[in-house]
């Protein structure tokens, strides 16, 4: 064998060895959350465990800077109290510190003793020391979990009697707030990445949900997707109410907030027949609403924007709420608040 041939064989075997080695490591250990390509949707989805029933996203920066927000701010200045309270308690100024949030809801995990929980992942600029100090003042305790500081609030009791609310800075500029179990899972996913061997998988592996996310991503600055049937089953509704619910499996809401709000609500039903029934119901409600709005010119534009669509198992309702509608709401709210002031 000549030297040239020997080098070729070595290089070829090296490519194979590196490839197989990398694949093997991925298979047994998993890759960090940021490794390789994006599946669509915000990066934070990689930190949400696979069994999420609802995921919501909001581009807080865009929403806060929108004309609509400014209009509401001018019309209802008193509504800023909640924002101020959040800043006092956590040191987070919603207006300037947060760029975007991704929130999720998880189902009750039977047999594991884990209650239903939620988590909010906020990306922005946070004063970690101040936030930790404020939370400690409110009775939170700090523990180390896989190299991250997990600030768990033991004073909060949600059904189980255990500490269930925690906060952690998963990476610089990314804070996770929610049930302790979910925060731990988020840290696991961030540190170790996906690992099918240990059943540690993010929601990006949930193809049905992620394809809905992909269809909404970049269409607006706020959206939510979720499993309607899972939510309805957890709501513990009375039997007679539950049986009346339409056979919806998935739902999604996408909206763009700027001068007004325009968006689409989509529902995916179990079969074509259920979709037809749902369309009939929505059509009925739309007719009723248009009838009611005929005497209110400011609502007519909104009513005219309602458009029912979708094909097969999908029912879609698009809408556009103009800024004038919020002027009316603001005027009504101010009118209602004035007598209270006296």
């Amino acid at each position, binding site marked *: *064998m000549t030297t040239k041939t020997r080098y070729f064989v070595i290089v070829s075997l090296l490519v194979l060895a590196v490839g*197989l080695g990398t*694949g093997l490591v991925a298979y047994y250990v*998993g*890759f960090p959350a940021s490794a*390789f390509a994006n*599946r669509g949707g915000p990066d934070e989805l990689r930190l949400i465990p696979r069994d999420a029933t609802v995921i919501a996203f909001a581009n807080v920066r865009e929403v806060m800077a929108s004309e609509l927000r400014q209009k509401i701010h001018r019309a209802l200045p008193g509504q800023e109290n909640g924002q101020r309270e959040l800043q006092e308690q956590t040191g987070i100024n919603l207006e300037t510190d947060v760029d975007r949030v991704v929130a999720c809801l998880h189902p009750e995990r039977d047999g594991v003793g884990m209650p239903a929980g939620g988590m909010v992942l906020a990306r922005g600029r946070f004063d970690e020391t101040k936030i930790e100090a404020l939370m400690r003042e409110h009775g939170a305790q700090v523990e180390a979990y896989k190299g991250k500081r997990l600030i768990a609030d033991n004073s909060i009791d949600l059904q189980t009697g255990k500490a269930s609310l925690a906060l952690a800075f998963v990476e610089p500029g990314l804070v996770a707030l929610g049930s302790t179990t979910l925060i731990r899972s988020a840290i696991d996913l961030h540190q170790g990445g*996906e690992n099918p061997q240990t059943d540690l998988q993010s929601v990006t592996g949930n193809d049905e949900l*992620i394809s809905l996310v992909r269809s909404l991503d970049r269409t607006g600055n706020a959206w939510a997707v979720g499993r309607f049937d899972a939510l309805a089953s957890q709501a513990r509704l009375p039997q007679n109410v539950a049986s009346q619910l339409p056979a919806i499996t998935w739902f999604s809401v996408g909206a763009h907030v700027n001068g007004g709000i325009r968006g689409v609500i989509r529902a995916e039903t179990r079969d074509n027949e259920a979709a037809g029934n749902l369309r009939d119901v929505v059509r009925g409600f739309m007719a009723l609403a248009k009838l009611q709005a005929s005497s209110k010119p400011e609502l007519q534009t909104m009513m005219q924007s309602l458009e029912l669509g979708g094909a097969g198992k999908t029912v879609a309702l698009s809408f556009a709420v103009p800024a004038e509608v919020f002027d009316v709401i603001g005027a009504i709210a101010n009118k209602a608040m004035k007598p209270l002031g006296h």
Partner: protein
Amino acid sequence: MTAPPKPTPGAPTLLQSAMRVFDLSLGQMLWSRRSLFLGVLLGGPVLLAIALRVVAALYESEFKINGAQMSGSAVFGLMIWLLYIRFIVPVLGVFYGTSLIADEVDDKTITYLFTRPIPRSAVLLGKYFAYVVCTTLLVLPSVMLVFFLVVPTGGGRIAEAFPALVADLGMLIVGLTAYGAVFALVGTWLKRPLIAGLVFTFGWEPAVMLFPGYLKRLTVAYYLQGLVTHEMPQDSAVSLLMQVFREVPSIATSLLSLAVIVVLTLWLSGRAVEHREYVLEQ
């Protein structure tokens, strides 16, 4: 040509002789003009994978075939099936397998090999081993590059797709081995082996695979598709086409049949080389 000389006592065994021929042939095969063709053939899927990766990165969109969404793993599976299994592997088998002995005859150098004190079949066997190693060392890295470029796009996952990759690499080696052995036999039997090989690959195999009945059992592709693990996308023309191909033997049957094909065709090739009188055209 004269009859092959009888191996002298103490002469190398069939395997030792084959390994000696392998050592000589591997370099010849790798640095021949045919390798340029091989490079183009294997560079195509890599370039396609790079293009897909760039498109996926720029537009952040998933792949769709006839409206059916496809993850990177599914695209990789499709590339393995359509580009490698159905095209590259048979083509490599035809071009390299048929030339194992035919090239030496055309170049009139077969005399130098057949006058050595080694069994004639060792020449074929050594060249066949060189073909398997040469093509394997070129095809497998190409597949590896395609895997890492395509799978992470459109929501595919390296960890999830890795077992399928290992199965694919094994299947490609089996495919190269089987096609090489079949066309080595064609090369030793026929005067114009390349034409016969191309007719078999692109005429006979695709045609009988589409018809119901037993004829498809007279192809290599039928047994090779039994080893394909990839699921095809739903609701598409491709899936419809795949449903036609779905009549597949079990993995055990496929492996056993392919092993029988390799052993039988190599044995027949060896016998043909041992007994055939090669006439060198002046």
